[in-house]
């Protein structure tokens, strides 16, 4: 059995009429909530440590209508990871519900009611599995008790079947719907009286549902028929369509605008200036000039017709920001010592004494999340109450932002989360929602949809941080590593919210840099300064990307210098299977998880390496021009290794024959969606390795659309992607899924390119570096 958290409480909210509408009729509403910590419990982890994660309000709900329909409220954002299906599977399974009679309702943004909703950090299942199971189990026991009372039999003679309670001695049955009204009058069972289903009784959890004909994706049919609703698919009468011209440089402001030509465009209704907030930008709008029209096309044309002067002086040195010069500056800074993050032994002596000394500098550029659905939001105000429809990863941030902007109470802001047409971190920042609410207020509450174009999305993203990582190692005569020095430089996401700290924060360094799992006698990890000149934000897997790229590339370089097999060498760097307390390696963050429950497990790192290499037939010789590349990484409480089989021709064209991905996230709740997340991570990582780059020239982003910001296509897709899920062990606490597959992809691919060609890629993307 999975260890359940002791602070979980249950409450029957239907008795308290907590949810207006939801708890209507004889419906049973059951809620699981996290109890607040007592004052003497200083440290909290996991869900309890998240904002509103543990407040005394319900965060998951089950409703059973009298017709037997089971509704499960999903409070997390759905952006392709399948959480609307997976969380419902969990509750339905514990409840004993028939999948055909289960539906999902999307919660509005309301953390006071639902608990934390910030869908980020690969946390949804990790933090919601236990509460959802217990909610399902409690509801099942209440139905059993209602049946027992109706039949006047002992409760232990009543057992849930599929959507029915069965009186086991007589075989009599009552449907869930027939029992819902009576069950809703019962007290919620005490937490310690709940019986969770044993694993072998699960019908949905852990099942490979596409192949076994168990649950299909809950939104699947709506998606393939065009009925699924994303951010731009909500229509309100009298709404206007807005497109905004934003300052081309971070921190710049509007100087003047001539809107006469814009107003002459048929369909354009208004032009409104949107104030900007300067720096730090936070989640606030960048400001600019909005063109509002009767349709999107007119708004776009109107914007094209604006004549705008921008004040670039107020942007300071952001207006001088150019990527090649910045890269050079970071590479120069990387040659000097920086703030020491972690130290073991005497690294200078180890490097000086080494038989062989290696040094390499790696570069990863800015990238944009570029979900195919660009940011979009619809807002209106009615009687000083705001309502928003938007694809949003972090509805609470949106709600707080709108309330503050409009000067209205939080409870007067409703955030309706639509499906997200991809998120990848971009939609955790509600700047685009605050643009819509601002404009609606300026029009006395008239509904306004703000539509970002692709150019807007690429020019004004919250960019993945550009990074330089410089590594040095000293090897002894047999190639064994004696010393390791790693300096990492990137602008920090913290620059969004406060004066630029010019250093990565603990949570940023904790993503694969500080807890580097190598067993080397002398190590020093340093973080020199780097400043931010564009908005920096979360991008899927965040700083794990450059850290894994540098560390896993350099480990392969060390193996090559040592004349050793890369896999064997990597296993030796990791050392024997053991558990490392993150605190012992100065990692105070550990993805917010309890270091005792979530140690760094070297055995699991070894396990994914062994599985991936075995599947890829690592030992088999490849013909000339073809090679295998390996990388491994631990992040978001999960372990991933990737092996690519790559061929590079004389023109430098890369053909990826196969990818073997071994992934260990502990218990596999929805393996089918875990597999698809790994496939997607593989594709995105190929793009990071080969194609994707955002660059700035004098503070302006140079890429306008997908012809310049290249993301992977079908033709870049490996012939085969084989996903190997291992370690489905109920004794292990759950790991993340959405992000941890991504970090090892780019270094594995670059290591394969090296194996195929002898050319070492240290600067991403590969682009045309292999040509000629």
């Amino acid at each position, binding site marked *: 059995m999975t260890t359940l958290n002791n602070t979980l409480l249950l409450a029957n909210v239907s008795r308290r009429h907590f949810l207006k509408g939801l708890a209507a009729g004889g419906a049973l509403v059951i809620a699981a909530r996290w109890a607040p910590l007592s004052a003497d419990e200083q440290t909290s982890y996991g869900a309890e440590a998240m904002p509103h994660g543990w407040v005394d309000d319900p965060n998951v709900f089950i409703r059973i209508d009298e017709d037997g329909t089971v509704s499960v409220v999903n409070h997390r954002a759905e952006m392709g990871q399948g959480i609307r299906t997976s969380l419902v599977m969990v509750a339905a399974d514990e409840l004993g519900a028939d999948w055909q009679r289960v539906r999902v309702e999307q919660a509005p943004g309301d953390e006071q009611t639902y608990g934390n909703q910030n869908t980020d950090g690969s946390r949804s299942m990790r933090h919601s599995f236990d509460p959802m199971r217990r909610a399902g189990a409690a509801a099942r026991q209440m139905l059993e008790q209602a049946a027992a009372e109706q039949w006047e039999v002992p409760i232990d003679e009543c057992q849930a079947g599929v959507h029915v309670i069965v009186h086991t001695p007589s075989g009599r049955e009552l449907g869930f719907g027939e029992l819902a009204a009576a069950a809703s009058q019962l007290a919620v069972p005490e937490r310690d009286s709940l019986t969770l289903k044993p694993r072998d009784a699960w019908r949905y959890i852990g099942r490979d549902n596409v192949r076994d004909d168990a649950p299909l994706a809950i939104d699947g049919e709506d998606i393939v028929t065009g009925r699924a609703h994303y951010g731009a698919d909500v229509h309100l009468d009298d709404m206007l369509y807005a497109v905004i011209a934003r300052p081309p440089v971070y921190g710049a402001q509007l100087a003047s605008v001539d809107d006469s030509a814009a107003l002459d465009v048929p369909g354009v209704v208004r032009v409104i200036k949107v104030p900007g907030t300067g720096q730090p930008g936070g989640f606030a709008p960048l400001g600019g000039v909005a063109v509002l029209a009767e349709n*999107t096309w007119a708004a776009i044309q109107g914007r094209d017709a604006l004549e705008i002067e921008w004040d670039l002086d107020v942007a300071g040195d952001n207006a001088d920001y150019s990527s090649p010069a910045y890269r050079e500056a970071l590479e120069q800074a990387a040659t000097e010592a920086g703030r020491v993050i972690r130290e073991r032994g005497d690294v200078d002596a180890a490097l000086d004494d080494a038989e062989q000394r290696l040094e390499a500098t790696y570069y990863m550029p800015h990238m944009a999340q570029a979900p195919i659905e660009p940011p979009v939001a619809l807002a209106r105000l009615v009687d000083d109450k705001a309502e928003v429809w938007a694809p949003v990863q972090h509805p609470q941030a949106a709600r707080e932002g709108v309330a503050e902007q409009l000067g209205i109470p939080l409870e007067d802001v409703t955030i309706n989360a639509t499906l997200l047409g991809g998120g990848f971190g971009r939609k955790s920042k509600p700047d685009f929602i605050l643009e819509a609410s601002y404009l609606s207020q300026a029009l006395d509450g008239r509904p306004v949809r703000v539509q970002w174009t692709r150019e807007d999305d690429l020019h004004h993203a919250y960019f993945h941080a550009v990074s330089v990582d410089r590594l040095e190692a000293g090897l002894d005569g047999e190639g064994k590593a004696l010393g390791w020095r790693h300096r990492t430089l990137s602008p920090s996401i913290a620059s969004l919210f406060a004066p630029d700290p010019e250093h990565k924060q603990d949570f940023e360094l904790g993503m694969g840099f500080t807890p580097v799992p190598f067993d080397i006698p002398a190590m020093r990890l340093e973080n020199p300064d780097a400043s931010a000149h564009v908005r920096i934000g979360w991008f899927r897997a965040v700083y794990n990307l450059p850290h894994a790229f540098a560390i896993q590339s350099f480990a392969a370089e060390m193996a090559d210098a040592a004349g050793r097999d890369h896999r064997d060498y990597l296993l030796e760097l990791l050392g024997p299977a053991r558990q490392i307390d993150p605190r012992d390696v100065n990692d105070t963050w550990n993805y917010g998880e309890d270091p005792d429950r979530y140690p760094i497990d070297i055995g699991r790192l070894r396990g994914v390496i062994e599985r991936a290499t075995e599947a890829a037939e690592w030992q088999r010789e490849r013909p000339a021009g073809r090679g295998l590349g390996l990388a491994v990484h631990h992040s978001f409480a999960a372990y991933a290794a990737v092996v690519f089989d790559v061929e590079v021709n004389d023109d430098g064209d890369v053909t990826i024959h196969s990818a073997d991905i071994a992934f260990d996230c502990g218990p596999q709740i929805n393996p089918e969606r875990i597999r698809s997340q790994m496939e997607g991570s593989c594709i995105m990582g190929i793009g990071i390795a080969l194609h994707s780059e955002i660059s700035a020239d004098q503070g302006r982003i140079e890429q306008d659309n997908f012809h310049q910001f290249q993301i992977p296509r*079908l033709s870049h897709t*490996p012939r085969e992607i084989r996903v190997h899920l291992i370690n489905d062990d109920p004794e292990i606490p759950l790991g993340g899924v959405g992000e941890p597959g991504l970090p090892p992809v780019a270094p594995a691919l670059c290591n394969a390119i090296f194996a195929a060609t002898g050319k070492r890629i240290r600067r991403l993307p590969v682009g045309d570096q292999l040509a000629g």
Partner: protein
Amino acid sequence: MITLTINGQQHELDVPDQMPLLWALRDVARLTGTKFGCGIAQCGACTVHLDGEAVRSCVTPVSQAQDRDVTTIEGIADDAVGSRVQQAWLELGVAQCGYCQSGQIMGASALLKQTPSPSDAQIVEAMDGNLCRCGTYSRIRQAIQRAAEHGEQQA
């Protein structure tokens, strides 16, 4: 006033000739299954059929769609090939976020209507302009192959 035949139904739309078909469909006819992704025919999210052929509606002036049959994702189930493609998409669990999948399905349907048993190279040629940020490409390829197989069985 422009008259369009969309999924077999006539629509009178009061839009300028040069408005891209995408915005006429979405904002005026309020058929929102067709998606906006790039506006310059670089991503394929807006793919619809004109007389059975895949076009990027974001760069197709609405006037060009007059006197032709416009088919969108909302109407593709009425087409035997389109219906098979949708079914294959479901069977293989292709969609992640799903946003680009309208365009993918329209692209795949147009391919299979013209080339019922496409080679891998033909699949890439037809589908390489349909971007998916979630990275569902290998399942897209498999789903097209499966829909083709089902088509052969029924032929």
